[in-house]
């Protein structure tokens, strides 16, 4: 197997990502590796769980018309998942490339829409929303990296998901407060009552975050 995995395109914190051809398709292989610092029981449990979550949640997204790479194959033994390769730039790359205001607005709208469908139609929380986990492919926004995703009905879980994204935005892209607001606005417009509840909870979660620092 190892020599057919192709070229490593990213060595992440918990997975190696390869680009290769699989059954004639342009393919990404994401191979998770064991972490020696984790208790073996915990490590095994997390790795298996995340492989399963990733393929299940992607399938669930696709059922609801949310753009995600198609899963071609899951190799539990090899701790690998084979995914459709998505041509394009991550939102992080776009943001780093000094985008025009119009580009920013377009991307914000797409992000808000995608997240609202994912939360309120598919009933999913992504669990690791960052700008590197979104790829702009033409005029479609693809969400990737669903290893920490799960199904939930709680507005609180979804609010924390948005909170994670907000913090990723503000820490990675200074002065992106306006953009994040636009994302939330698009989220609001694309969701009905359940979306409102999430946004309301988000305010609570944000307050908690600010209040939390009791002492150092």
């Amino acid at each position: 197997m190892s020599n057919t995995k192709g070229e490593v395109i990213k060595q992440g914190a918990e997975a190696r990502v390869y680009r290769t051809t699989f059954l004639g398709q342009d393919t990404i292989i994401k191979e998770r590796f064991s972490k020696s610092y984790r208790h073996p029981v915990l490590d095994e449990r997390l790795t298996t769980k995340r492989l399963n979550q990733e393929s299940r949640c992607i399938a669930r997204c696709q059922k609801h018309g949310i753009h995600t790479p198609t899963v071609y194959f899951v190799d539990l033994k090899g701790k690998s998942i084979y995914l459709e390769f998505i041509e394009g730039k991550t939102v992080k790359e776009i943001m780093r490339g000094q985008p025009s205001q119009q580009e920013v607005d377009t991307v914000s709208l797409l992000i808000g829409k995608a997240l609202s469908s994912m939360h309120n139609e598919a009933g999913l929380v992504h669990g690791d929303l960052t700008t590197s986990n979104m790829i702009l492919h033409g005029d479609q926004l693809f969400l990737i990296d669903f290893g920490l995703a799960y199904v939930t009905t709680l507005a609180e879980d979804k609010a924390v998901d948005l909170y994670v994204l907000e913090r990723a935005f503000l820490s990675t892209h200074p002065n992106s407060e306006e953009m994040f607001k636009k994302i939330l606005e698009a989220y609001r417009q694309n969701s009905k009552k359940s979306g409102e509840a999430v946004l309301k909870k988000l305010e609570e979660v944000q307050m908690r975050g600010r209040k939390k620092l009791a002492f150092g």
Partner: protein
Amino acid sequence: MVLVMGFEGSANKIGIGIVRDDGHILANERTTYCPKVGEGFLPKDTAKHHRDNILRLVQKALQTANITPSELDALAYTKGPGMGGPLRSVAVVARTLSQLWKKPLIPVNHCIGHIEMGRIVTGADDPVILYVSGGNTQVISYSLQRYRIFGETIDIAIGNCLDRFARVIQVPNDPSPGYNIEQMAKKGQQFIELPYVVKGMDVSFSGILSSIEKIATQQLAEGTCTKEDLCYSLQETLFAMLIETTERAMAHCGQNEVLIVGGVGCNVHLQEERGGKLFATDDRYCIDNGAMIAWGGLVMFTSGVKEVPLSETTCTQRYRTDEVLVQWRT
């Protein structure tokens, strides 16, 4: 040569330190308020402890450093974050001495003190910082004049989680609950599965705490596990979560050094837990101390923060790390 005296008392330690601009630590005196087994430290009692000890520690620091107050260039104190009462009890003394000795007084963010102290002691230049203490759990990285928070706990701090668990199983507070849990964890045999809650670069500990509390009451009574097993499993789970999010932040920021600071950072097991380039300090520096505030004040002082008007030398219980303009770094 610049000499600064630092005053720290944001939680249950009161510390006075004196540092020099080459990073040399001339004195670092400290005492810790340890409540009885099963109790946490209350603001009122902690403030009293600080008031009772602070003057003695100031004198001792001057003695150890072998200097007179006239040789100092500035004083620095912890503005926050922290517990109101203890913070104020220390700030009052710092303000008074700055007036008496006619020295400028610099307010320091406690977290920045930890970070800058960690950097100077270990020589880590631009690390991802894992900040783990009783009140704080954050993954931080520097960019554009701020220490930016990439990940943090969305509920309670790691130290708080450990301390509260220590009270449940009646672990002594002396020298610290965390230290005692670490020792007990070494004797743990059985790994008990606990919730593992990581959300991106954020973590959550409150669910783990309530889950282990339940397990403790049940299984300890039934004799199916020991306190040591629980300490071991809790530590393994919490630390794996911290390291995972730290690694994620490192990958995200493209950095390969980690600096661990804060009281929980002196846990040797946590320091051993990962490969890569890890920087950590021992308990003299990762536990709250006066030298770190002195050093935080010194880097501010030498980068141009000359004098803060007396009316602005206040305290605040909430003071986020990313609020501080880091004008001493490029």
